[in-house]
């Protein structure tokens, strides 16, 4: 089976700093895969490079078997690789419904009414301005907007960062619903409980390289790896 998203030996730079030093990973249909690692390991940069917001110096990005390396972000997004950025990217001056309306794409299997079934809070607040939403609601709106484009792959950058536990629970179950609807998800997240609850597989990134890969079951019983790569101890 071919991977829906395949990154091969990606190298990226911010100015002169070599951030990604050969990242390779893949994501297949029906999967949620997490990308773990300490701050500064290159997790967000991996997502941004995949979608073309950062142009890779070398390496390859394939989406559903098609090479999209080096294309501008809007074209990669249109081809079906959707990034929900860490800052959520809500248009503050647009209403919730307008934020959704501009994201609707012809030919997408998702309509705004489907979105409201997954995220009922957004329907309640559809006349509110994007800037008036709580952090959790903004996150839901950002995910909802990405879905409306009919993505082949969804990439979430720290979706529950800074949110209250009750909202985290809500968003975790919503992400599960989206996976069940057939959208594979690449998840960057610091909250290990969330990663364990959702993911089929895990990658660990350190200093711009993938240093470990594990299935959910392997990972659950491997506290040594967790301590080594993710723990606060040196």
């Amino acid at each position, binding site marked *: 089976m071919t991977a829906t998203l395949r990154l091969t030996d990606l190298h990226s730079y911010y100015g002169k700093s070599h951030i990604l030093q050969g990242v390779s990973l893949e994501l297949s249909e029906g999967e949620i895969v997490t990308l773990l690692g300490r701050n500064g390991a290159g997790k967000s940069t991996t997502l941004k490079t995949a979608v073309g*917001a950062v142009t890779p110096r070398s390496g390859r990005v394939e989406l559903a078997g098609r090479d999209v390396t080096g294309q*501008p*972000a*809007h074209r990669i*997004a*249109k081809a079906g690789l959707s990034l929900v950025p860490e800052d959520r990217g809500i*248009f503050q001056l*647009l209403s919730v419904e*307008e934020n959704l309306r*501009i994201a609707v794409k012809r030919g997408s299997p998702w309509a705004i009414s489907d979105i409201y079934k997954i995220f009922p809070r957004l329907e309640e607040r559809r006349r509110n301005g994007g800037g008036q939403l709580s952090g959790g609601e903004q996150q839901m709106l950002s995910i909802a907007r990405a879905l409306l484009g009919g993505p082949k792959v969804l990439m979430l950058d720290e979706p529950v960062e800074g949110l209250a536990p009750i909202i985290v629970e809500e968003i975790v179950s919503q992400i599960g619903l989206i996976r069940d609807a057939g959208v594979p998800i690449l998840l960057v997240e610091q909250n290990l409980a969330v990663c364990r609850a959702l993911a089929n597989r895990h990658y660990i990134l350190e200093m711009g390289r993938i240093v470990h890969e594990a299935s959910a079951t392997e990972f659950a019983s491997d506290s040594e790896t967790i301590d080594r790569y993710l723990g606060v101890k040196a």
Partner: protein
Amino acid sequence: MIYLFQILNGIGLGMLYFLLAAGLSIIFGLLQFVNFAHGAFYLLGAYLTYDLVERGVSFWIALPVATLIVAIVAGAIEALLLHRIYKLPHTFHILVTVGIALVFQELAIIIWGPIGGSVPTPDGLGGVVMLGNFVYPQYRLFTIAVTAVLAGGLWWLLEGTRVGAIVRAGSESASNMALLGYNTMRINTAVFAFGAGLAGLAGALAAPIRGVEPFMGAEALSVAFVVVVIGGMGSYTGALAAGLMIGIIQSLMTTIWPQGAQLFIYIAMAAVIAIRPRGLLGRV
């Protein structure tokens, strides 16, 4: 009675200023681009109308054709030249667009001569309307009606449609629009062409009232900036209120103290800024 007449004139003038300023404001809102070539598009709209009418084309055809040509020319300038300088400081925007404005002004002199000319009142609107015991030209009432309808239509387009939401979203963040699959370069070109088209339309509508001359662009530009500043950057209703205010002040002053009419526009601006630095309805 003369004042009522001048207030009506002022409303007509003010609505044309509003069209100009709305175009300028939409362009600045989306692109953060200071467009000193805006007056040149007004000039081009007026001269194209003049030229077409001189060739025997009906004003009713010349009006949309001139507007469309201005939009196409502006879109081409944006796509070929201006998009390269958006990221540079505003002084560069001014330098380049002032250059473009001068090119248009001098081209007008070369092609149509330094004197200018007049555009006859269009067929069917040459008459007058009796308002009580004084007369008012039909064409001026027509421009008030047309611009009022346009103002409503523009508001609906910007606030009530998906296209308007796309433009407003682009003003907030171009990079987030790219993540949603939008080619922001294409949106920028379209919006620039649209804003310039509004200036061209204002010029075409103004031609039968004020005639054409090579320096009308520079004059329109300064008024448009005054209107945007008074109304508040990025505020649509502010531009409408400020356009009407400036139009009426200018018309009334023409009767009271003709030499001071231009001066009073700037006095009004200074007064508004002194009281409300962000303009009447400014957000930023």
